[in-house]
């Protein structure tokens, strides 16, 4: 960080500590918005906090506030740290009356602020997908095949995992599917198995981004899909 700072001269010298971000027009929330305008990846709360010179917690609260504001709620929510997964809340109900005590519905914006892959990012609101998609030339990749989805699911829940193990679970060779998933940036290599020397794979940040979730913890629980097999782990690892 030090060597980068001396490598340029913004001229205004305004990045010296002491400039209170709250004094700027729009305050700290607007400062966060300004940063979110120039990023092409999800930005972590700590990066944002460092840039605006505030604590991570305060920044987290401000971000939740912006998120709610864009979604059409105004007034204070129930404080910071609530509804981290509020990003998944999706579109608010337009006709809903008063949301809660001290809160009013206003018109939602055409964009939303969401927490994905451990960071925050501005997205167009999905209601306008059919309109926006005409302007996005190169952004969307093709849909995944059933085979790719299943392979991705196994890797997501068993990571780090070798291809051989994924093959064993899916019952078919997964080499080419794994290659495709890696090319698409959804999975990546992560070292080798200590015993077998086989390459191991894990999901990427981009995978979380594409799913619209903040971390792998938000994936659906596997257990409910495995009724009554609490001891599955016993079978699971012993057989490969």
């Amino acid at each position, binding site marked *: 960080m030090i060597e980068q700072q001396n490598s340029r001269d913004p001229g205004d010298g305004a990045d010296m500590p002491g400039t209170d971000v709250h004094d700027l027009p729009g305050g700290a929330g607007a400062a966060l918005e300004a940063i979110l305008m120039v990023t092409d990846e999800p930005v972590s709360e700590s990066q944002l906090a460092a840039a605006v010179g505030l604590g991570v917690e305060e920044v987290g609260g401000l971000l939740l506030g912006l998120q709610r504001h864009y979604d059409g709620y105004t007034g204070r929510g129930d404080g910071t740290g609530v509804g981290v997964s509020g990003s998944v809340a999706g579109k608010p109900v337009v006709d809903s009356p008063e949301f809660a005590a001290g809160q009013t519905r206003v018109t939602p914006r055409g964009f939303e602020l969401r927490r994905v892959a451990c960071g925050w990012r501005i997205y167009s609101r999905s209601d306008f997908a059919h309109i926006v998609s005409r302007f996005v030339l190169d952004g969307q990749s093709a849909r995944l095949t059933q085979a790719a*989805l299943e392979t991705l699911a196994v890797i997501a829940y068993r990571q780090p995992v070798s291809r051989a193990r994924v093959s064993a679970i899916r019952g078919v060779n997964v080499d080419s599917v794994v290659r495709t998933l890696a090319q698409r940036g959804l999975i990546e290599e992560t070292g080798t198995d200590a015993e077998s020397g086989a390459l191991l794979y894990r999901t990427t940040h981009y995978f979380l981004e594409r799913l619209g979730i903040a971390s792998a913890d938000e994936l659906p629980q596997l257990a409910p899909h495995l009724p009554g097999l609490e001891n599955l782990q016993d079978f699971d690892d012993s057989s490969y």
Partner: protein
Amino acid sequence: MDITEIALARVTDEFIAYIRRPQELGKEWALDEASEFLVLAATLLDLKAARLLPAGEVENDDDIALLEARDLLFARLLQYKAFKEIAAIMGGWLDREADRFPRLVGLEPQFASLLPELLWRHSPEKFAALARKALAPREAAPTEVGLSHLHAPTVSVLEQAQIMRAMLAAGTALSFRVLIADAETTMVVVARFLALLEMFRDAAVTFEQASPLGELQVRWTGVSRDWRSNNLSAEYAGVLSEMSVPEEAIQ
């Protein structure tokens, strides 16, 4: 899970779909898995019957062992089914997300100009070397269990045959002890011994042993001047090919 609530027909459908997939991909019909399914189906009926009839009993230990083996298969099937369901959920999420477009814009010029000047130290040649590396077709990583973690280095019988042939080329008889004098590991000794057996079979060498357990003298016969290590029997070379270096590398 209550076993009595599982519809056998549904499991059957799913299992048939499961074992058909390799077939659809042009692979061999998974006969063993198909027969496993018959066992599984029988087991399921067995279990269902046992559960439904209070008097139903498991008869002996063999049956229990068999049931456990079938359970394993069944558990795997259920596991696969669970991942399939999860995959469907994930697919729905991906579709939902496809309707949202992230703000992905270039850095505004005044900020882009702040970026530190790039340090660039690549000559065209260095850059070409980089391209060569990046463009080279990458070896598909092995699917099999790797051997590289084994500490014993691999030893090639072919290679050891070549080495001994060179040692014996002068025509004088050498003892086995001499032939293995430079062997650093037991594996090399074993490989040289195997190589000698092969060469003996091809009549490339003769053995002399004055007394039982005495010195083994090995002599190049000269009969097969053109004996080459690729005379090593095909099946032998095939078996060891995994452990061998290509012959060109030796010659």
